[in-house]
């Protein structure tokens, strides 16, 4: 509606836009625009510094960030595994628009594959277990999706909710899978001891290198969890790359078209069922990977680790962050996984505070923390149209 001949079209477009409730919105685009507009070398340097910082995070022990009540490396790993899960669920929920409330099922299948074949029933090598876990989870995704993806919306949510519970209950009631007592001795990633990295120690605003507190690179032990975090972080970067590749291709377009209008997509030549199944399988792939990493860090799993609540938290991470935007869901996962750990000191209050934080977010950022670029831009235009509409309404008043 900026220039040119706009008379009939503008009016009809304005009249046709459904009125939206006023939203709080501030321009978050400014920062990202400034970053994108940087010259290429500067941009890459910035990204490089950021990546190095992320890897150094467990060594830096930054006072405000660090968790006083739990090992920071362990918290970072938990956050990273949530991020991974959120990225996987984002493919299913954010891109393809399929509400999956049983995502923990895939997480569990990945974890159980590693545990059962690595400890309980066989002693396969870790290098074999991870791909096996991923393959089995992907197959379980296809098996779940093939019959259920014919139903839509709420019905799909109910079916997937059931799936998550079925997996947990099956594990709980099957001796072969360890039943209620769970599985111990899950293999850890193989260690290679190369060198040692000292941590920092902070006194007020000054940091000193603490030579007594060192992380062995790369030893996957019990006490020091930083290496697990590095492993998960590396996996996240690989998944992010794959995510981007798929998004900017026929596959990503087909997912989005299916989400926007399934029937129209089908009539424009998109085999929607196939692409929904693909989204499900990709989501399962990433969920299973995350579960497998979780099991090999934990060393011990039982059905209690895969409660329904976890599925809800995963969906919360995606929705809070902004479904459909990979950076958004990463933020969401950080909020959902990190905040409860950071405020563990408050004990019984922490879930209450966490719940309130989610409510506040839902109220003031219904599109998520970082909504997809498109939604954000569309929102801006909607606001313009709303403003316009108010103007025209006043003019049209006599007609009602």
């Amino acid at each position: 509606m900026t220039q040119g001949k706009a008379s009939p079209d503008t009016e009809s477009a304005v009249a046709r836009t459904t009125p939206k409730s006023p939203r709080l919105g501030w321009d978050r685009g400014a920062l990202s625009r400034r970053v994108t507009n940087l010259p290429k070398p500067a941009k890459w340097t910035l990204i490089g510094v950021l990546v190095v910082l992320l890897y150094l995070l467990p060594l830096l022990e930054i006072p405000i960030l660090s968790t006083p009540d739990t090992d920071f490396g362990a918290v970072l790993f938990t956050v990273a595994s949530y991020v991974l899960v959120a990225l996987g669920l984002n493919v299913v929920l954010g891109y393809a628009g399929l509400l999956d409330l049983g995502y923990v099922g895939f997480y569990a299948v990945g974890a159980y594959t590693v545990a059962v074949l690595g400890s309980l029933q066989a002693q396969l090598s870790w290098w074999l277990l991870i791909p096996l876990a991923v393959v089995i989870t992907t197959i379980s995704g296809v098996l779940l999706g093939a019959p259920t993806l014919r139903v839509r919306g709420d019905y799909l949510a109910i079916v997937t909710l059931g799936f998550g519970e079925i997996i947990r209950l099956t594990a709980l009631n099957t001796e072969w899978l360890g039943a209620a007592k769970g599985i111990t001795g899950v293999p850890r990633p193989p260690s290679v001891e190369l060198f040692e990295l000292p941590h920092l120690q902070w006194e007020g605003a000054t940091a000193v290198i603490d030579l007594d507190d060192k992380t062995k690179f790369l030893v996957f032990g019990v006490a020091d969890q930083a290496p697990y975090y590095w492993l998960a972080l590396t996996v996240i970067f690989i998944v992010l790359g794959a995510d981007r590749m798929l998004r900017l291709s026929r596959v990503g377009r087909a997912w989005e078209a299916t989400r926007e209008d399934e029937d129209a997509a089908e009539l424009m030549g998109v085999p929607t069922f196939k692409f929904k199944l693909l989204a499900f399988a990709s989501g399962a792939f990433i969920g299973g990977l995350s579960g497998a990493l979780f099991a090999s860090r934990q060393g011990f799993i039982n059905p209690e680790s895969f409660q329904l609540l976890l599925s809800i938290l995963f969906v919360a991470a995606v929705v809070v962050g902004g479904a459909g935007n990979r950076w958004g869901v990463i933020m969401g996962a950080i909020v959902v996984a990190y905040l409860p750990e950071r405020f563990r000191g408050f004990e019984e209050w922490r879930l209450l505070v966490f719940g309130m934080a989610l409510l506040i977010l839902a109220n003031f950022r219904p599109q998520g923390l970082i909504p997809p670029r498109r939604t954000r831009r569309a929102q801006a235009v909607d606001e313009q149209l709303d403003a316009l509409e108010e103007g025209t309404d006043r003019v049209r008043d006599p007609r009602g």
Partner: protein
Amino acid sequence: MSEIPVAEQPAAREGAALLSVDDVSIQFGGLKALDHVSFDVREGEILGLIGPNGAGKTTCFNVMTGVYQPTSGEVRFAGSPLGRRKRFAITRLGIARTFQNIRLFGNMTALENVLVGADAHHRTNVIDALIRSPRHRREEREGEETAREVMKFLGLERRADELARNLSYGEQRRLEIARAMATKPRLLCLDEPAAGFNPAEKAQLMDLIRRIRDRGLTVLLIEHDMGLVMGVSDRVAVLEFGRKIAEGVPADVRNDPAVIAAYLGTEVDDLDDEEANL
């Protein structure tokens, strides 16, 4: 209706039947939406399908594009029956359509909407996309060429990066046509493309439909606006209560007593409904 100048009427184009609707009936419970309907769409023509509201026009489209299966009879495209082909497979075969109520992918850009159409014939899979294989790159390039060309043809080239839902109403209608054309159809089915248009826009649309035909496409047009249908169609088929009551060149159909009977007395209702639709 007479504000729109009726263009010179070319003699009915002679061509082989591209699409044959052969004795198709479709029943929803007790309601016969289509009752032994037969007509041909000939290669290279513009066929107008008209009728009062509820006559079965959109149902007819839905049978042709695989949304509904006919209760009896069959639809043949380029000689072979559609059978139980899936909807996307029919699109790949060469039938594309637009929708009576605009159904764009609102949160995708205009260009992406058209690219989805162009993707109808693409085979890029997950592996291709992940490793950026030659096939992926070739299809992306071709798809974008097709999409940009079609958008240019419809005068949308400057709106490519706009979100579909932010386009004006008229642009959205054209974008639907662009998306359908990007699937490289042989038959383009337009479902009430002029709904909500003013006379000037209708005149532009008539010109556009002719230009589409001149690109070698066959056009099947459902429309309420008699002036537009009569002005642009080579031939017209008339449905009423699920039955075909007339077929022929516009001049003949206009004077057909059955057609006049069908439209007289329902006209007032028709206008009311049309207004309700807006």
